[in-house]
């Protein structure tokens, strides 16, 4: 039996701004299973960072409204906890790594001290013991000469090394859940590969669950067990990596996959999603993706699609999966992936766009 460690239910968050209410996250629901890596993919402004920051309650207090929803961890709703209780969880049980390692580290403190600070706070160790533990952690994340490096300041490190320090900081209290918010976006590919492998290795070693936010599908393919695709504040598709990569159902997922060329891409024109993401200040009625969606149906402009079940682990919010929806043919690249999926996993149950394609071709 898979153990669910964190459960986010119907999370809805808005921000009060001078221009009005920005609905950043609308009804996001997902479970995090112990030991898995869940990747959340989406473009900037899709609400992926806001969703996970809400879990740790690190959103700005002044203008954030938690409209509804619950975040269950160890039987308690984190959104209802008093701040003092939350402080015992934040950083200790649920730790975060951020995108920019320079702005997340204190430039005036040595890195050893910064790591030790978190240990002293949560584990009640003495300064000297905490310092020793910090050196161990700095060694664990693969920084050479940990003794000397711990006495360095962040500016003396490269971006990759700083991100390693951030990881050491996040791991200081052996958290259950690690939230990595675009941890490799600012790094070179070679360094990115090292950091991804490091997170993966530590995840196994410390038996953590990881929520990994990124916009790079290549990174997702590398780290994720399951993938959630977000668009305009909603999850539009969620499933195992195999399902999302080889059996995607939502036109937005199709667009994302097709618009990233692989080294084999030879098409004269790259597939691109037309238009730009919607303004979250005044969201259109119906499906937010409809105006950019070549496969949009009339109902997409009127009513938001519910989740349709593709398999026990795979859900997609698109009207195309409705039994009464017309048949569509996904882009060629997606059809190729469907074939791969069929050849890999023979018994696929539930409704899917693929069945309709087959029916279309057959009759």
């Amino acid at each position, binding site marked *: 039996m898979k153990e669910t460690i964190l459960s986010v239910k119907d999370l809805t968050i808005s921000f009060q701004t001078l221009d009005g209410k920005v609905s950043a996250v609308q009804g996001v629901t997902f479970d995090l299973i112990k030991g898995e890596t869940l990747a959340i993919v989406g473009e900037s402004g899709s609400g992926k960072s806001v969703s996970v920051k809400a879990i740790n309650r690190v959103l700005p207090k002044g203008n954030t409204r938690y409209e509804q929803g619950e975040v269950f961890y160890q039987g308690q709703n984190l959104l209802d906890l008093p701040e003092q209780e939350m402080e015992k969880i934040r950083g200790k049980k649920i730790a975060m790594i951020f995108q920019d390692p320079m702005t997340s580290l204190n430039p005036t403190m040595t890195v050893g001290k910064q790591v030790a600070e978190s240990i002293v706070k949560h584990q009640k160790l003495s300064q000297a013991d905490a310092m020793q533990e910090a050196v161990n952690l700095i060694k664990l994340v693969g920084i050479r000469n940990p003794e000397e490096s711990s006495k360095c300041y962040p500016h003396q490190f490269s971006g990759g090394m700083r991100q390693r320090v951030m990881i050491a900081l996040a791991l200081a209290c052996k958290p259950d859940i690690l939230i990595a918010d675009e941890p490799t976006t600012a790094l070179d590919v*070679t360094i990115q590969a090292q950091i991804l492998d490091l997170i993966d290795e530590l995840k196994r070693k410390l038996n953590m669950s990881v929520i990994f936010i990124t916009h*790079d*599908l290549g990174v997702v*393919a590398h780290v994720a067990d399951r993938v959630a695709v977000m668009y305009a504040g909603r999850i539009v598709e969620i499933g195992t990596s*195999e399902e999302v*990569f080889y059996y995607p159902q939502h036109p937005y997922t199709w667009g994302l996959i097709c618009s990233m060329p692989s080294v084999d891409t030879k098409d004269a024109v*790259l597939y691109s999603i037309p238009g730009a*993401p919607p303004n979250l200040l005044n969201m259109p009625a119906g499906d937010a993706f409809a105006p950019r969606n070549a496969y949009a149906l009339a109902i997409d402009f009127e009513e938001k699609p519910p989740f349709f079940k593709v398999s026990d682990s795979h859900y997609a919010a698109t009207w195309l999966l409705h039994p009464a929806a017309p048949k569509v043919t996904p882009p060629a690249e997606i059809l190729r992936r469907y074939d791969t999926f069929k050849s890999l996993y023979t018994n696929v149950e539930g409704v899917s766009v693929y069945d309709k394609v087959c029916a279309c071709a057959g009759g």
Partner: protein
Amino acid sequence: MTKSAPVQEDREVILRVRNLQKIYNPGKKNEVRAIDDISFDIYKGETLGLVGESGSGKSTTGRSIIKLESITAGTVTYKGQDISKLSGRSAVMDFRKSMQMIFQDPFASLNPRIPVKNIIGDALRLHGICKTDEEVSAKVNELLDIVGIHRCYANRYPTEFSGGQCQRIGIARALCVRPDFIIADECLSALDVSIQAQIVNLLIRLRQERKMTYLFIAHDLAMVKYISDRIAVMKDGKILEMAPADELYARPLHPYTVSLLSASPLTDLHKEKQRRRMDYDTSTHKYPAGTEVGMFEVSPQHWIYCSKAEAPQYEQRAFSRLQVAN
């Protein structure tokens, strides 16, 4: 095997870079060799991709070519003219009319205080392309059409646009002087995935319509392969390998290129799970003093930075891989 930069007779060389060097703080303790003796040619109408990690000198190369940085040594010859010998405002203006740059950060490269019509229009006036207000406004509208921004947005300010739209405005500004050569310095890296594809399609369309030449600087290897005819790989101020795009990806020879290709994540799940990363030992290209090192053509159009002793080995490997491929 010849030790010189690539020369091919049948194509016109638009840009010739020879032994280019850029050293910051020369002779001081904090000396940085940003570009360390590189040579290459760009042919008319082709796209040369320049890849490498941050700090490898790829942006400095672009900026040196367009005279945003002074060069320490070497020559950059554009259309037969040595750009370091350009003197006087009009000569530089003519040069800039022919060569333009698109920058990485679409917000930082547009003045937030002036509306789009002036961002593009001022360039038109400065270069004397349009004289009257009517001409300018007509031309601005035409350029906005080309890059896919609605004309009625001409009075808006850069902050009112998204990143992708700002990048389009940056492209429109670069296009307004009808350049023959564009340096695109990481022009996609600040953009979302779905917008990147739009901009790439725009660049490719413009290349076809206007027969432009691009120097495309980037670190996204798949995108570079897609847009480029040839690719040069840079590391620590040196070009380590240069080859036609397909050749470089199919048969990389330099260990650094191999490691770079093996490090980039793939969007196909199965291939990604099977990907094995190769690490590159930087000591392999630190040659002892006195060794004769340089660019060697180990197979047609495929250049490797190595010592004279290593060149035959690379040549042998290139040959055997080609045989396997056939």
